[in-house]
């Protein structure tokens, strides 16, 4: 019996071997090709927290691949890298593979990227969405983000147009227009986002108010959907969100409430509720950084993408749901933002506890003291993402009502 089993095994192996070798011949040829080209090309690494199943990481992955292809460099991607020592090890492996520029996509990678930067002074490291490069003082360590609040402001304008249309048609649930917003955490990044969205809408319908609820997770479809339903029951005429799943858009679709999405169009899934969405396009930054390293030039320690650089984008406008004239209005406001005649956080457009602000110190330097050390209001507006790319607007302005907070 024993012998028979062993004989069977040996037979199997012998049958398999030529098959494997045959497959090997075909596959090997394909593998060899890029390696040959890659011999001379610059190598660039990307470390992501999750994989393409998360819309957040997908946004980084897609632009990265496109930018590498466009510039003819070899991109090496390491996915599902946790925010721990694994990130340091992954960065080290990318250095071993010959990468001279390495990006990471999650805030929590930052400390480990900084550590890797200190240990590999010849390689450039970029912690995207990070905030500590300004104070770190390490030459080859960088941060990058985009002024997404401008995109959200524009999305808010589209929302305001829709509310105006509902108001004029007498279709509002209450007397005054009311919006709902599903956020992930009560962090500056989210606060900056919902406030700019609200101010965009308020520029069209001055009497608008907004309820905000938080889920305590960047990706929790059930909680986001429940949050949206709670807001709809609370009288919201329109919903927007800052979290990564389809939870809120789906809730809006089912309730027939117009929705302003984030990070990508949901037109296909929700053709009767989706209006527009804003997203960060990372390609301009990748191309800027890769080109700089290719040419042996230094690049910004702290880079902020804007509407001008093409880093802040609006996705397709759904004409079926959006109010008439939205596209023209968006063009007008976008031009205003670009030429500086409109500022998102213009202090004349909002109050905090009933008062107009003329001074505010924000915690721009991300050090251990949590000091609010930098004056960020001047020339009549709050200078968001100018002193540091990562958002630091953390004011609770009037008209926005937080139903809960999650840290």
């Amino acid at each position: 019996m024993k012998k028979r089993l062993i004989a069977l095994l040996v037979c199997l192996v012998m049958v398999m071997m030529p098959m494997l070798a045959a497959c090997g011949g075909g596959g090997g040829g394909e593998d060899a090709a890029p390696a040959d080209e890659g011999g001379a090309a610059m190598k660039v690494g990307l470390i992501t927290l999750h994989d393409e199943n998360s819309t957040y990481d997908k946004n980084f992955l897609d632009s990265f691949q496109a930018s590498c292809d466009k510039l003819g460099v070899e991109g090496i991607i390491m996915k599902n890298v946790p925010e721990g020592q694994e990130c340091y090890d992954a960065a080290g492996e990318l250095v071993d593979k010959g990468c001279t520029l390495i990006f990471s996509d999650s805030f929590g990678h930052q400390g480990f990227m900084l550590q890797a930067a200190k240990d590999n002074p010849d390689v450039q490291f970029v912690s995207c969405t990070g905030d500590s490069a300004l104070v770190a003082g390490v030459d080859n360590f960088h941060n990058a983000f985009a002024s997404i609040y401008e995109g959200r402001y524009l999305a808010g304008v589209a929302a305001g147009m829709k509310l105006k249309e509902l108001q004029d048609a007498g279709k509002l649930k209450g007397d005054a227009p009311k919006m709902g917003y599903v956020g992930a955490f009560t962090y500056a990044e989210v606060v900056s986002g919902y406030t700019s969205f609200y101010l965009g809408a308020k520029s069209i319908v001055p009497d608008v108010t907004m309820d905000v609820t938080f889920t305590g997770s960047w990706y929790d479809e059930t909680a986001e959907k429940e949050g949206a339903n709670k807001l709809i029951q609370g009288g919201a005429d329109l919903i927007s969100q800052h979290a990564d799943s389809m939870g809120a858009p789906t809730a809006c679709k089912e309730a027939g409430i117009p929705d302003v999405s984030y990070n990508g169009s949901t037109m296909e899934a929700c053709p009767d509720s989706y209006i527009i969405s804003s997203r960060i396009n990372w390609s301009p930054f990748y191309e800027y950084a890769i080109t700089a390293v290719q040419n042996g030039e230094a690049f910004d320690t702290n880079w902020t993408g804007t509407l001008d650089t093409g880093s802040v984008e609006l996705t397709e406008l759904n004409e079926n749901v959006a109010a008439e004239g939205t596209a023209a209005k968006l063009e007008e406001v976008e031009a205003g933002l670009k030429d500086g005649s409109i500022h998102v956080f213009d202090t004349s457009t909002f109050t905090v506890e009933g008062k107009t602000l003329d001074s505010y110190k924000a915690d721009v330097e991300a050090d251990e003291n949590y000091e609010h050390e930098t004056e960020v209001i001047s020339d009549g507006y709050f200078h968001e993402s100018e002193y540091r790319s990562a958002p630091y607007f953390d004011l609770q302005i009037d008209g926005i009502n937080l139903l809960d907070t999650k840290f």
Partner: protein
Amino acid sequence: MDKQKKEPLIHITKRKAISKTHEWGIRLGSILIALIVCAFITTITTHLNPISVYGAMWEGSFGSPRKMWALLKELSILLMVSVALAPAFKMKFWNLGGGGQVMAGVLATATCMITLDDKLPNAALILVSLIAALAAGALWAFIPAFCKAKWNTNETLFTLMMNYVATQIVAYYIIIWENPKGSGKIGIINPNTNAGWLPVIAEKQYLLPVLVSIVVTIFMYIYLKYSKHGYELSVVGESQNTARYVGINVGKVIIRTLVLCGLICGLTGWLLVAGTDHTMTTTIEAGRGFLGVMVAWLAHFNPIGMILSGLLMVFMSRGGSEISTAFGLNNSFGDILTGVILFFVIGSEFFINYKVHFRKAHGKEAA
């Protein structure tokens, strides 16, 4: 040979004894079959050459000195947890709380590093954090062990729940110490002063955890095989009544064994925070408390054998992520291959313990 007509096609008998070569023959054979099955899956689903995929797995684990060190570090940490769980499982105390005990050590170490960084000289800080981590790990194991010994509570549920309690306490303190405020992360602890960081030996960052795990593994091997304690806990595992009959204090053995387990888990947490990661997250333990159960079980609770079974696990996980980087596949593909290989490896234990007989065809002689 002649039997009744209604002999079943397959019947199974328990093996009495099996030679080491036969045992290993079955194991290696199962891995071989697993590789062949994986080759089919790879070719059919991805159209990649399985040999180059296996090559990438090998590359991912052993491809460069840095990868070897990362592999050794992973193996050391996993091995420590597995070794810690072994005596409890040998005693048939189902300790699923290895993860929580590690987290207790993690929290204690991080607490010392954050609150005492400027109050103690570095050597004293490291010593204090070590003692705190050992005590916290031991306490986290003592609580369920005491309740088991005293009131015969269900240790499986109790230790499992203790994991969640530990993780939630860690989550609470992360919010208190988060840096910068509002980020939900504490980042690297003492990045500039390196206070409380373990020294780097011979410029090899991961050498210390590797050395510690070797010492712990050898200690546990001797403890289980040659010490009176080790003998007592295996008697308790065989039969608590027998243990009582021969005069072993069962409750005492349970508590003593679990405290030992907690001490090693606490030590692991200390190595994770002060030695390798220098931060605290709710996922720093990374499921090793559960993976360690499998590692220990596959090695039949023999600490030396755990080096092999642990190596298999770490190799699969590092190799799996290398596949996704090298071929642009989703990490799930590595998980599929890991699952298939583990299925066969665990399945081979069945064939080591049991013999399968096939019905002989009539008129033919047995081979």
